[in-house]
């Protein structure tokens, strides 16, 4: 039951199939599973549906799977950073389902938590709610959104112990913990592998029960999309 795998290709062995649905954590390029995405590209798996808040940039993150045309459909809240995306979508090569960011996060949580559907005010009165069930609660209108489950979830954490317990760092947490709960198989990549007992059990973000296997990633690029700094004032 050893959860630590040698590398990304190794971890993905036997879990990929054409037409599958894959969740990938990250917000922009922050907290994305860099190594696993590259291994996914190299695997050649195709016609995949990807659930991810963004789709990387043209030549990094999930964007590299658009270049190889391995993605059939995206569920996202924002793809503005990616021109390849826009082009493939406009030409009809790529399907796209926009979800409000909070609805997307909640749908993943619901899927992982055995909640078939939930009622939210988000999107009521917009095209997002068209064709969906509506219901009144306390005089306000809510729209029903369903839970999401993926064949595979790929997440990025900071550290993992042998049990697969995960700890995230700062805003690199984002979608990773909820997506970790919503994969039939969940594979994590981390920057550091620690010993059992190194984590304070009160500080664990994702209990190992959600993690099928994990790898220690290499060569992290972590590109910054918008570098904003201030000047030291003497």
């Amino acid at each position, binding site marked *: 039951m050893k959860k630590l795998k040698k590398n990304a290709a190794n971890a993905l062995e036997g879990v990929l199939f054409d037409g599958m649905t894959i969740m990938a954590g990250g917000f922009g390029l*922050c907290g994305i599973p860099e190594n696993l995405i590259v291994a996914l590209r190299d695997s050649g798996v195709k016609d995949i549906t990807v659930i991810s808040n963004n789709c990387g940039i043209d030549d990094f993150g999930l964007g590299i799977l658009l270049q190889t045309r391995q993605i059939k459909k995206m569920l996202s809240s*924002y793809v503005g*950073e990616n021109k390849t995306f826009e082009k493939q979508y406009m030409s009809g090569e790529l399907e796209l389902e926009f979800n409000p*960011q909070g609805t997307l996060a909640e749908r993943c949580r619901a899927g992982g938590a055995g909640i078939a559907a939930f009622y939210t005010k988000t999107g*009521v009165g917009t095209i997002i709610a068209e064709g969906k069930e509506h219901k009144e609660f306390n005089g306000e209108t809510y729209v029903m959104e369903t839970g999401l489950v993926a064949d595979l979830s790929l997440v990025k954490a900071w550290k993992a112990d042998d049990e697969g317990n995960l700890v995230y*760092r700062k805003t690199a947490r984002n979608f990773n913990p*909820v997506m970790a709960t919503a994969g039939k198989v969940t594979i994590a990549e981390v920057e550091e592998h620690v010993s059992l007992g190194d984590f304070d059990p009160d500080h664990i973000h994702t209990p190992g029960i959600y993690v099928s296997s994990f790898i220690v990633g290499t060569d992290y690029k972590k590109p*910054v999309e*918008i*570098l904003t700094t201030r000047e030291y004032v003497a």
Partner: protein
Amino acid sequence: MSWSREEIAQRAAQELKDGFYVNLGIGIPTLVANYIPENVQVTLESENGMLGMGPFPYPDQVDPDLINAGKQTITELPQSSYFSSADSFAMIRGGHINLAILGAMQVAQNGDLANWMIPGKMIKGMGGAMDLVAGVNKVVVIMDHVAKDGTPKLLKACDLPLTGSGVTDLLITNLAVFDFQNELPLLTELAPGVDLEEIKEKTEAEFTVCPKLKRHLHVQ
């Protein structure tokens, strides 16, 4: 004359009350952080999973694991906390954020807001905007009063896909301020050098005029 970007931000900052938890959108709303009134302490929330957003980092402090919802590098404060996207939007949807300030392409007289899509032209996505306008207690919208081609942006009805229906609470343009608490927008303030005629001309929406209409020389 009209308000500059900085003056609009400064006017929006007057909506901040002590103890508020606030979400600032991309663009001019981000500038509001520079004009937080003295004696007012607010906590900035970033919907990618952070409360207590600090200023931009010094060049040697940049951390790719620490960005705001606009993907800009930021810093943390002693009171900061991090959480998942699900927990972040639980906070937003649950009505725990006091105020959101965001940009718009169009606002309708019933408070409808459009800021995420131009069919056939722009497909960036709504990001967290739909959740914010649906969940945050008070929604302050900032936009230029008219589009680049001079057409009004405060309309009888939006023709762009909506971000939220009837969600606008206050609108601040470069020319004027409108309150959306009643049936029709209430014009409450005019930028320096702007008169009622100009607003009427550049506004498609019906609106009422506050008996105590304020004519500003400068935003304080």
